[in-house]
């Protein structure tokens, strides 16, 4: 690789960075967080008690509460979408959803289709192994991912007590 190529790449980054007014890093390629802030956050939910529950049109569960709080923090309305995990992840990948919840864990097979947050709580699975829980957000929307992760980190203690788990 020639030094010229590197200089060209570096110049591109600097130019674009300056052009963007060096807005917050990381930024969303598709501007999801910016759009959702003061607007609409599209959340997919697949039922998985006690994380997400749906009864007679009433939503409940640890992750439902968390996402509702997050939406409140960024002054967003939630547009819910129900379905199975695979369907929701497909919608997330296609950009029709911003966040997917449903008791996902770090071992989720969706790592190539969705950006998983850092674990926000670790519970013990029925088989006795540790189970770190995460949420899924749209791939590459790093401002949203970081905002969600920061939000979840602040609630680790609270959630650990609630579900009788441990902080990661």
């Amino acid at each position, binding site marked *: *690789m*020639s*030094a010229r*190529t*590197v200089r060209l*790449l*570096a110049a*591109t*980054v600097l130019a*674009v*960075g300056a052009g*963007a007014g060096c*807005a917050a*890093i*990381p*930024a*969303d*390629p598709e*501007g999801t967080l910016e759009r959702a802030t003061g607007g609409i956050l599209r959340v997919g939910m697949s039922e998985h008690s006690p994380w997400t529950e749906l009864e007679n049109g009433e939503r409940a569960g640890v992750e439902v509460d968390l996402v509702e709080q997050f939406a409140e923090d960024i002054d967003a309305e939630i547009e819910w979408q129900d379905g199975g995990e695979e369907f929701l992840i497909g919608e997330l990948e296609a950009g029709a959803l911003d966040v997917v919840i449903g008791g996902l864990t770090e071992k989720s097979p969706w790592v190539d289709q969705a*950006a*998983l*947050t*850092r674990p926000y709580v670790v519970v013990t699975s029925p088989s006795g192994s540790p189970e770190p829980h995460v949420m899924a*957000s*749209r*791939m*590459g*929307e*790093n*401002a949203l*991912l*970081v905002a969600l*992760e*920061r939000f979840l*980190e602040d609630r680790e203690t609270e959630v650990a007590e609630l579900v009788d788990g441990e902080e990661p």
Partner: protein
Amino acid sequence: VTSRSAKRAAVLAERIELPPSKKRTMEHAVRLEWLTIAFLVTAVVAMYLALGSSQAMKAAWIEDLLSFLPPIAFLVTNRIRSKEPTHDHPYGFHRSVTVGYMVAATALLVMGTYLVAESALGLVAAEHIPIGLVTVFGQTFWAGWLMIAALAYTLVPPVLLGRAKLKPARDLHDKVLFADADMNKADWQTAAAGIVGVLGIGIGLWWLDAVAAIVIGGSIAYDGWKNLRTALGDLMDSRASVFDDRTTVHPAVCGVRDAVLAQRGVEAAQVRVREEGHVFHAEVFVVPSGEPFTVRDLDRLREVVRDVDWKLHHVAVVPVGELPIGNLPLP
């Protein structure tokens, strides 16, 4: 008996060791290569700890992993190359240097090509790379900054090491050392491209990461291709060339011919010189002029040829009635 074995030892030493002045240079080169390995261990560990899903960062990390190969090839073959010839290996083990060189070059070519292909596929599939938060010593921040810090650590030391290795590479006429120095010198560009890729993700340009990874992979593959050609040329007994350019004939080739032709009793001569690792193997065919030509003359010619360059180790002087002989190219 003692004097005979001492004489034998002296003959062997003369045959397989570097001249005393080069020996010190070799020790210096060995130290530099160990230093390189020590640095690479810290660099690879630092980058591994910071490694996220950035393609460019992964490419830079793999490049650092591959950077182990030339120093290891150098240090390993340094132990093998000067072993005494055996019945199974009558030409000795000098060529282990070229074999090590070829292995390192092949690894570079394969890995570089793989990285280009993988990143190109990612680019076509428009893979957006997620990078979230990381916590280090109680501080939580965007993991991209950690990756950039690790890459920045690998920015400067390789350049210094590469520069330091150039002089011994020239003195020893060592192609492996030179290729290593050359790669080290260019290593900062890999780190810089990695930083560009991660920053690209940071400012929302998802494709910049894949492009930077392709650039890095391309540079690795190019290094591999360049060195593989040289290594294969040496294994194919191509004409001895200078250490930093395979198309430039080594001055020893013409030097041998001129030195032989300048001797009395030589009417015509033809020379072929090939590389066996660090040392050269020369076959000199001479047509004696009318004067009486004895075994002593042959020994004298052999000494004359060996004095041309310290690299001329195996020298065979063959008296013939006529040139050219057999498979030799026309003069």
